[in-house]
């Protein structure tokens, strides 16, 4: 199929993508698509290719084989229109450490073209229980891991993305934070706000809200489809 051909994938999809880092194949022939209301759990052991898949979906890196499609258009080029409808959070990253959480959120709100960002920021920080004094006074490098993850989640929701990519955000959240995250995922699912791809090790937190899961092992997809129980997932990896 030629590039830019229309294909049947609602919001975003990957089509037979493979990726090598040097001689090491980190993703092998992965296909997946997501529409509004889809919450897709990406599971697998360390090095399975979860983050690489998210990095490809975010356009940060390009696949070596296969293509990414957005609203039916296939292309591996960096597309600013797509990026304005997408957002990303990963607890292994930080925002500008020299600025406060609020200043960072204003900065990204401007980058995503928000005009009424004060209300949006207030709503999001209140939702994730981020203390107003902390977000306006404390520089980001002084935040705890949990606070940093909550800040990244706030940033990832600024533009109410149609494609939300979350990489290992559950690990550093406290119980209340996890509940907030799950309620957010339910909102995406029930109100069909867009699609969410979430990579995590904590299956018990994420699985109940997933509409689809993908199991990766050594870069290969061993299962993609309806959510399975944790026991079945363990059996699949064991076999």
């Amino acid at each position: 199929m030629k590039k830019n051909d229309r294909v049947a994938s609602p919001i975003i999809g990957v089509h037979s993508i493979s990726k090598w880092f040097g001689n090491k194949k980190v993703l092998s022939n992965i296909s997946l698509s997501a529409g509004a209301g889809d919450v897709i759990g990406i599971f697998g052991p360390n090095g399975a290719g979860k983050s690489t898949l998210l990095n490809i979906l975010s356009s940060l890196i390009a696949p070596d084989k296969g293509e990414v499609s957005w609203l039916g258009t296939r292309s591996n080029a960096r597309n600013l229109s797509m990026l304005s409808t997408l957002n990303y959070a990963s607890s292994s990253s930080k925002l500008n450490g020299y600025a406060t959480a609020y200043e960072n959120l204003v900065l990204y709100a401007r980058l995503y073209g928000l005009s009424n960002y004060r209300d949006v920021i207030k709503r999001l920080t209140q939702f994730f229980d981020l203390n107003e004094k902390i977000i306006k006074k404390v520089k980001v490098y002084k935040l705890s891991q949990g606070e940093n993850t909550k800040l990244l989640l706030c940033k990832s929701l600024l533009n109410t993305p149609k494609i939300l990519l979350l990489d290992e955000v559950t690990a550093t959240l406290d119980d209340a934070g996890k509940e907030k995250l799950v309620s957010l995922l339910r909102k995406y699912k029930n109100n069909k706000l867009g699609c969410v791809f979430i990579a995590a090790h904590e299956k018990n937190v994420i699985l109940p809200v997933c509409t689809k899961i993908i199991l990766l092992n050594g870069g290969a997809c061993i299962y993609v489809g309806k959510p399975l129980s944790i026991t079945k997932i363990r059996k699949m990896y064991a076999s």
Partner: protein
Amino acid sequence: MHHNMKVNHFIALVTHFLYSVKRSPYRLFEIVFYLSIELSYFGLLSRFIEKTNSAYISLSTGIVVGIVFIAFFTRVMQENLAQLFDDMGTKNMRHLLIAPVTIIDIALASIVSSFIKLLVSFMVPSILLVFAFPSFFSVLSVFSFIWIIIIVLFASAVSFCITGLMFVFGERIHFVGWVTASVVTILSCVVYARSLLPQPLFAVSFALPPSFVFESVRATFLNGSFSGDGLFVGLVLSVTYCVIGVWIMYALFNVARKTGSLIHV
């Protein structure tokens, strides 16, 4: 893209790059401190030469001004690289690259924020200069602003190339920036005439915009009035290098997207 959104992007990115100074005065201290030390050190040397032989007054002032401007060059390059280096270290760079901004947006914001930092860093040493070396200001004209523009654009061009290399090879490659700065210092003829360079290097120096600045600086202080000979060539070269620098950064960014090395930023 909508014009207002472009302006918003630009303001956001410039603000982002300025936060390193605004929220951390010690960074500003770093920028000002080393320049002030260099000025005091070489400035006192210059005063010593003046007292020894009055015939060398203009020459010694020219040397000090040359040192000031090469310090500008390294500061601009350092700041450009430092702000992008910080973003790579914390992996904030990936959030910027996943946002709907172009490499050109980042490059332009980086130039403007470096220019602002340069002006701020110039304030404190210039107070030193007013008292210690009044001759620094006596022959300067508004045209000498071109000296600063050439320096900023060329330093930015070098830092864009290094940033592109950091996209592909990671942060460890940043040492290339300091090596380049040292080589540029020699070939730009900061404190000696271009004609003193051996033949092959003499030819190379014509390809370096700062060499035109320092030739102009020396001529200005020796003649007692502003001399802009060759500055236009230097300006055209620095604009050209800046465009090439952005293009190289963009090309290397695309290489890094393909190899996957951007996962580390």
